[in-house]
């Protein structure tokens, strides 16, 4: 069921800056979504429009079929966990969590029970009487989540909520948020600039840049088949080289022809080729599809990050579990499915249409 729908939403600020440019998107009930993009991409603006803190210049916002474009934030069944948590400093943990219910004039016994449940859910059972200033960042984060969830919203919005936590705590919170979302079955919309976080947590990701949705889809779709070089560069590391389509399922780059998995592009068209560093394997020079010379090698704990150059001076980033030597000539091997071809200026809709033309019978694996 669709719970939130944005139709042709545009947001222009007083100074003329266009934060959102004709955004249409549909949020289904019970899923975990991420709005992913660099700062200034418009992701927080979308969140503020959904929450009701900001009104779109043009376009409509629907909630469960009702037009809520002009509805006050206080009357929406949507709650928000703010980036800096926005906990009320003059209230203790209990008062913070109870705030929403007290505003709604619920019975005291009911509030007490609901707050207790909410604090239990975020594992802060014994913290009810603490002052906010006594809590660590991670604990404040949990209070903010409890304060939002106690109102039983249909949708929970999270604005860069984990960015202030250290790496270890962030990982824990990712698991926990995902578990809470599964347990309650409500929709979570998570705003982040951290692609790893988005990939790890989401059912579906919207990748945003310059006020436009660049691509939407499951984490696997977006990672494996970025629609343009912004998405390819923003999500994970990539090697992007120029190439030319020879015919369906054959592409030419670095002056060689390779078998590939893409089709539906006119022969001879200039394209971009994406190869993920972890898809590249180091082999003996005679077994490789490319010959490169290793330029540098960094040990990153779980893998080596290797930079190498081919004969045409293209730089290649390779992730390998095995070490090599700087200055050594090695071969690079990849499968034909690892080659992802991107057309210049192709929109997501065009991309999907093209996929359908030649992938009719293998829909299980791709869309």
């Amino acid at each position, binding site marked *: 069921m669709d719970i939130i729908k944005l139709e042709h939403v545009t947001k222009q600020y007083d100074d003329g800056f266009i934060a959102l440019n004709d955004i249409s998107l549909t949020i289904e009930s019970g899923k975990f979504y991420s709005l992913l993009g660099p700062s200034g991409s418009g992701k927080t603006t979308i969140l503020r429009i959904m929450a009701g*803190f900001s009104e779109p210049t043009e376009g409509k916002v629907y909630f469960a079929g009702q037009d809520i474009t002009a509805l006050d934030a206080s009357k929406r069944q949507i*709650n928000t966990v703010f980036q800096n948590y*926005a906990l009320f400093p003059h209230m203790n943990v209990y008062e913070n969590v109870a705030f929403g219910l007290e505003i709604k004039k619920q019975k005291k016994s009911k509030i007490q029970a609901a707050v207790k449940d909410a604090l239990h859910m975020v594992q802060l059972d014994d913290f009810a009487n603490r002052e906010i200033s006594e809590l660590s960042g991670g604990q404040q984060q949990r209070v903010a989540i409890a304060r939002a969830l106690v109102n039983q919203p249909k949708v929970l919005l999270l604005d860069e909520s984990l960015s202030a936590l250290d790496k270890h705590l962030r990982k824990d919170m990712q698991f926990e948020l995902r578990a809470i979302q599964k347990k309650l079955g409500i929709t979570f919309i998570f705003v982040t600039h951290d692609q790893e976080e988005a990939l790890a947590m989401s059912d579906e990701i919207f990748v945003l840049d310059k006020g436009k949705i660049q691509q939407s889809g499951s984490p696997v779709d977006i990672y494996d088949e970025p629609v343009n070089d912004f998405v390819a560069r923003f999500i994970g590391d990539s090697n992007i080289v120029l190439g030319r389509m020879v015919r369906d399922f054959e592409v030419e780059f670095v002056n060689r022809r390779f078998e590939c998995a893409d089709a539906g592009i006119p022969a001879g068209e200039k394209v971009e080729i994406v190869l993920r560093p972890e898809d590249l394997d180091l082999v003996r020079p005679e077994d490789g599809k490319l010959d490169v010379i290793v330029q540098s090698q960094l040990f990153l704990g779980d893998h080596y990050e290797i930079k190498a150059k081919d004969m045409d001076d293209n730089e290649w980033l390779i992730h390998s579990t095995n070490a090599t030597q700087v200055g050594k000539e090695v071969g690079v091997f990849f499968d034909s499915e690892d080659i992802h071809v991107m057309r210049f200026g192709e929109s997501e809709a065009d991309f999907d249409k093209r996929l359908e033309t030649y992938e009719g019978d293998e829909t299980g694996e791709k869309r």
Partner: protein
Amino acid sequence: MKKKHFVWSRLYMAIVLFMMYLPIFYLIFYSFSSGKNMSRFRHFTWAHYVTLFHDDRLLAIFIETIMLALLSSLVATLIGTFGAIAIDQAKSKKFKGILLALNNILMVSPDVIIGASFLIFFTALGISLGFGSVLLSHIAFSIPVVVLMVLPRLKEMDRSLIDAAQDLGANQFDVFSKILLPVITPGILSGFFMAFTYSLDDFAVTFFVTGNGFSTLSVEIYSRARQGIDLEINALSALMFVFVLALVFVYYLIEKRRRFKKAPKRG
């Protein structure tokens, strides 16, 4: 080397503070001296305090001065707080700047000018000079102080607190009474105390706008001092000093309690 430097700075501080408090303690010291003037300390006596407590006129003025300070600072705090909120919420930066400048001009203009202009204003309007005119002018010159004390609190306040309250279902009034007001309360309190002391020690403005029937302590002391200092004034000054000391102490206690409540306990 470093230690020596430390000692010098302390000595400097001690001398400055000593010089600043010397005249006050000199005054208080002679309030316990028998005799008519401050040329020589004779022997210890409470006599000046006894005459002070039998001086009904002075005691009445003392009470009235306190009442005036309380009333004017209360009203000024109320108006000043709303004024600060209005300035803070002004949409255009230019307008905000103009409002702040108007506020600050009132702060820095000399009391004599303010007093004179109030006098002209009240006589032009035909308002009789007395308690009413003094109260109005005290309120007027206290408002800018309150605005200046409250405004930083509003600026410091995290805007997302208001968003968060609305997000949780709060209407405009809830946001004001449950979030905005409690968060800026420390600023309002210090604004109130500042306004109170401003009213208490004002001489120039009061001197201009007061009439026959009403006088404040500073005006009364001034007019008595012109006929030669009486040691009864010294006794009064000593009492006032103790009173202000108590006031500062109360303010300190309030601040300390608030800090204590907010201070993070380790862990």
